[in-house]
């Protein structure tokens, strides 16, 4: 059809429509390219190799733990919880940024989220999978974990629903289910694109099955968008409840250093903080590696840096409030706990926590640090370290110096503790690298929808 024919029926020129279509197909092409390039960059293979090695280490460590017993860890009489629950809280916190980006920012109509939402949702799911390992294996008899599920049984017993540990079971499993369904649902239109672009029969069938026969019809889109909005609206209170419930595991106990009302908001802020740091640790290198800089733009990275700065400062405030409340309470156990946290045998852990979480993110006040990828990744890795240490400090310093000095004990990890933690990163990165190679890493349909070209050909445009 020539431009002359088009102009009399369409209010706008053929040129505009053509440019819009080219924009849409370039979005498809650039994003699908990540999965379609004949060979991924060499470094992808290198990273996958390392990740698989670490994953193997996790398998060895967990197998040894399960076949031998919890004694292989450094846990002792004072520290029934040590690295196991530290790792659990660390990983579950990482997941929260994904839901925040995909749901909360969606409700606030922050369109810049579209470029990072998919990969952060994937990160959420993989982080929840890593997190889920620890509460199960730390019981020592993981094959009995199904006792947590309320079911009629020959012991005639039901779970104790007023225990925060049961709340945890419900919160985490709801969170995992919701995140997975939200992620998958968002991916279906893009899987349909992959299905339509695939040249090999196997890929057509596999992507075809998971695309569920999506046709992109307006009637389907209508219900789909409603459902997406509802899921976002449901995920938002959910994400707040999950880390609040995790914090109840501590806050409802009587232990000084745990028994505080500030924990739920403090944990949620910390979770978002650590999650954003992890998103950036993953995406800043990935956008270079897979040539996605024009889709995940510098502005998007900058916005994430600002959120990291804000939440990091909130966490810093929480540290200060904890000390104030300890002093204000007039409770000597409480006061001792916090002075011991800062100056006791774990002073070094406290120092790492404060410097990584409060001090280093302050660099993001300066634009230079929000635009330099190396500095961003550097600060984000420090934040990840700092947030791991935050959970370590909360759990281990409180347990190691409880009420009675005869019960005091210093915790030292064994090699199995270290292998389990490092190995969990192997699981996380393996899944993430596979995701990045085989699934639509960015929501193509959403990027197209928020592009200005989506209004091409409309009279009110």
């Amino acid at each position, binding site marked *: 059809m020539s431009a002359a024919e088009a102009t009399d029926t*369409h209010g706008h020129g053929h040129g505009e429509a053509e440019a819009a279509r080219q924009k849409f197909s370039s979005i498809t092409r650039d994003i699908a390219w990540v999965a379609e390039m004949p060979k991924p960059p060499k470094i992808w293979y290198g990273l996958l190799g390392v990740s698989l090695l670490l994953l193997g280490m996790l398998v060895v460590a967990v197998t040894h733990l399960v076949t031998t017993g919890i004694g292989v860890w450094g846990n002792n009489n004072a520290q029934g919880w040590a690295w196991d629950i530290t790792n659990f809280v660390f990983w579950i916190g990482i997941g929260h940024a994904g839901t925040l980006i995909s749901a909360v920012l969606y409700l606030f109509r922050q369109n810049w989220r579209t470029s990072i939402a998919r990969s952060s949702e994937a990160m959420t799911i993989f982080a929840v999978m890593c997190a889920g390992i620890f509460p199960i294996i730390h019981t020592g008899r993981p094959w009995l974990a199904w006792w947590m599920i309320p079911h009629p049984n020959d012991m005639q017993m039901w779970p104790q629903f*007023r225990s925060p540990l049961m709340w945890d079971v419900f*919160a985490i499993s709801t969170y995992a289910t919701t995140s997975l369904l939200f992620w998958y649902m968002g991916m279906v239109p893009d899987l349909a694109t992959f299905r339509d672009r695939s040249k090999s029969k196997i890929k057509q069938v596999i992507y075809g099955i998971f695309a569920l026969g999506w046709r992109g019809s307006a*009637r389907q889109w209508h219900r789909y968008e*409603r*459902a997406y909005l509802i899921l976002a609206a449901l995920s938002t*209170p959910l994400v707040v409840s999950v880390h609040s419930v995790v914090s109840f595991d501590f806050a409802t106990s009587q232990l000084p250093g745990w028994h505080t009302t500030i924990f739920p908001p403090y944990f949620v802020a910390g979770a978002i903080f650590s999650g954003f740091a992890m998103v950036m640790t993953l995406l800043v290198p990935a956008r270079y590696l897979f040539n996605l800089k024009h889709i995940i733009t510098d502005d998007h990275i900058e916005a994430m840096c600002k959120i990291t700065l804000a939440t990091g400062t909130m966490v810093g405030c929480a540290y200060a409030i904890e000390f104030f409340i300890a002093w204000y309470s007039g409770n000597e156990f409480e006061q001792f706990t916090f002075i011991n946290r800062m100056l006791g045998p774990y002073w070094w852990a406290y120092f790492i926590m404060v410097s990584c979480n409060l001090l280093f993110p302050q660099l993001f006040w300066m634009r230079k640090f929000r635009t330099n990828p190396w500095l961003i990744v550097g600060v984000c890795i420090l934040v990840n370290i700092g947030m791991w240490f935050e959970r370590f400090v909360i759990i281990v310093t409180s347990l190691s110096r409880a009420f009675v000095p005869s019960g005091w004990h210093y915790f030292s990890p064994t090699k199995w503790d270290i292998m389990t933690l490092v190995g969990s990163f192997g699981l996380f990165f393996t899944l993430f690298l596979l995701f990045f190679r085989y699934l639509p890493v960015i929501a193509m349909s959403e990027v197209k929808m928020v592009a200005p070209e989506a209004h*091409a*050909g409309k009279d009110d445009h």
Partner: protein
Amino acid sequence: MSTSTHDADNHEHGDAGAPAGDKPEGGGELYGVLAEFDSPGALVKGARKVKDAGYADFDCYSPFPVHGIDDAMGIKRTILPVVVFGAGITGTGLGLLMQWWMNSYDWPWNVGGKPTWSIPANIPIAYETTILLSVLTTFFGMWIFNKLPQVWHPFFRLDRFTKASDDGFLLGIEAKDKRFDLDRTTELLKKAGATAVEPCYHDPDPAKKQMPKWIYAFIAATTVMAMIPLALILKARASKSTQPHWHVIADMDFQPKFKSDNAFAAFPDGRANRGEIAGTVSTCSPGSPRPCDHDRHVKSDTAMYQGIEGGEWITGLPRSVEPTAQRLARGKERYDIFCAPCHGFDGKGAGIVPARVQKLGGAWAARDLTDVGAGVVTMPNGQLFNTISNGFATMMGYSSQIPVDDRWSIVLYVRALQRSQNATLDDVPADQRGALR
């Protein structure tokens, strides 16, 4: 199929004016027409014209939700939110009901005497079940309302249709619409701004009109196969077996060791339990470094340890048991502790246990030790000792609680009780009979 070779030429749709309605080779039944528009805005306008022309069985296809299309096509708001709201309320209700029923009704959890039902502590789980049920309803409800999964659709036969997931804006009208006429509908679409209109036919092979049969067969077969483990479990639950349970993980209930009554094929007699080897002597044999009571271990004194001598119950006392006043006192003390609760302090069988049984409506009473007719009085001492040691009828044996020596003291005291309860004046020493009168 491929869009990787997309270039400007692809968008010059030369087939826009192609004669519509040309059946393909051996073509099947007509499904409808598919029109292409060159921008989201053109699609919205086209959709409005199609709707205004009175068509109902049509739909638009685009790579992203096009703003304004719902109004143009006259799509009614979905009732999904209402359904989800209902699911949410149900989730709250079920969450609370589950917790109340399990923790307060079916098995009331008593935690330090606190109420078994206290709302605040039950809120977190009700909150999560609310969200969980809402999320599941949203997810599955959306697919059900959208009639998906449906991996088979006639439009998938057209190469053009793959643009709907890339950069194309398509409008399809089904032949089943009552206003549908291939030529007139094609004309309408062209007037409405379509850059290309193409008829779509079902596959000439009627078998390919639907999902292939083998997919249904596969789904049916996997469903049936998935039931097999469940069926085996149900069968195992309903039937009896002489074999012990099969445990996937033995925990510490099952340890790699043999108990005395286990079978063990490695020994000729098939038993794990090994008898005493001929000629075995006690570890406390003379000359052993540890001080020990040889007799207590070997128990060769059958009168003392079994109440038997020469195969008969002994009627006297074992050699080492002296009938002293001191022993009698010891026997009374032990009797009052171990025997009196049932047999009573006087031996007549009216202890506090039978009293309690009778109070609760039972008819049981302990045996009267002193009644000549009841048989205990005439019982040989050895048999009485054996009864104390190993029990009789509902009475349990006391060998694990009362040492041998004390059991003989009790025998002695029981004899004294029997004498005292069945005494005649002749039993009183002659010089004291006067005091009783």
